[in-house]
């Protein structure tokens, strides 16, 4: 039988932090509603907030690492992808210096994951070239 509940949370995108309700049906994210009375957003959302649930079950989501071979993107095991990234990154940094590398994280990962990426950029590789789609 259909189940429906709403879960209050904060929009994952920009730094404003609008309150939203995730509409959950069974184990599926059905949609988003702005949270009425929220001290930041007071029942309103921008277009990204209204669409915040769409990426979760999107058919366009990457589910496997892809590596370009002979001009085409081919799915590979994660170990192979990571080994390739490590080799290329190390090579670039050795030849051109740490600032030749740049890291981009995402509002669709957790803040903790973004922190790890920035730690790797600054402490491990030694560059400040790090950014985030919401300029976090």
């Amino acid at each position, binding site marked *: 039988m259909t189940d429906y509940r709403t879960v209050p949370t904060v929009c994952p995108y920009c730094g404003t932090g609008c309150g939203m309700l995730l509409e959950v049906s069974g184990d599926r994210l059905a949609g988003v509603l*702005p949270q*009425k009375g929220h001290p930041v957003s007071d029942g309103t959302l921008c277009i990204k907030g209204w669409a915040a649930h769409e990426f979760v079950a999107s058919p366009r989501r990457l589910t496997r690492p892809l590596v370009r071979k002979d001009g085409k993107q081919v799915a590979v095991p994660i170990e192979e992808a990571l080994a390739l990234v490590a080799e290329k990154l190390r090579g670039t940094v050795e030849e051109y210096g740490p600032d030749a590398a740049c890291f981009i994280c995402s509002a669709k990962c957790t803040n903790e994951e973004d922190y790890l990426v920035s730690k790797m950029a600054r402490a491990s590789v030694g560059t400040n070239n790090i950014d985030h789609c919401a300029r976090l």
Partner: protein
Amino acid sequence: MSIKERARELLGGEVEGVLGYRIVGGSHLPQLFTAADIDGMAEDYPADERYPLTSIVRRLQAEDPGIRLAVVARGCDERALIELCKQGQVDSGCIVILGLACDEELAQRCGCAEPFPSEIMQGRRVEGVPEDPLVEKIERLPAEERLDFWLSRFGSCIKCYGCRNVCPLCYCKECALDDAEMVERGRVPPTQPAFHLIRALDMAGRCVDCGLCEEACPMGIPLRALFRKVGRVVEDNFDYRPGRSSEEKSPLAVLGTEKDLE
């Protein structure tokens, strides 16, 4: 009998779910209750925390045809359900309305003409607001000023689509507002006044004056004044008000007879 008591009764066998609110962290949030968790249903309905329950009903019915539901409904919710049923979007036969009357303060602030459902289970009936003073003020402006007024308001639109997303009567799978020919892609504010005119004309004979659109607008655009004027135009020209009757179809939805053209 209060709404919650009636809900509990109905869950005894007449309905599978009751759409109401649960209090989480001090906020009232929409939830579908079953016999197993009906105890958690909130018993009060704060004016500041109204959600589009009718849209949720429509989706639940679409996912699970034949499901019998009860829903907490104010005057506007009932009007929306009546219109949705006439337009083939919900099956009223499977819906029990738990009528909630709006209190004096909400009735005055929200300002619709009938802030109560046809059968009130909870709350006391208060009179509504017959006319929107902003509509009258705009009508008195000369045409040029009227256009400037609207273009300046529409000019603050950030194209969040909140008004469309929250509207109980907006259910089109392909929306004109997403069409690149009608609304230019990638431009904010959106094509003016086309964006809001599209909504306004689409609301003719369908808007039930629930006010969720204006509440969802981050920029405070006076949408209700616009949609109320559209409602008045339809009423003046065709003597039709959405949600008034479950038989009477909108004149814009049927060919009609010669009599309708007078």
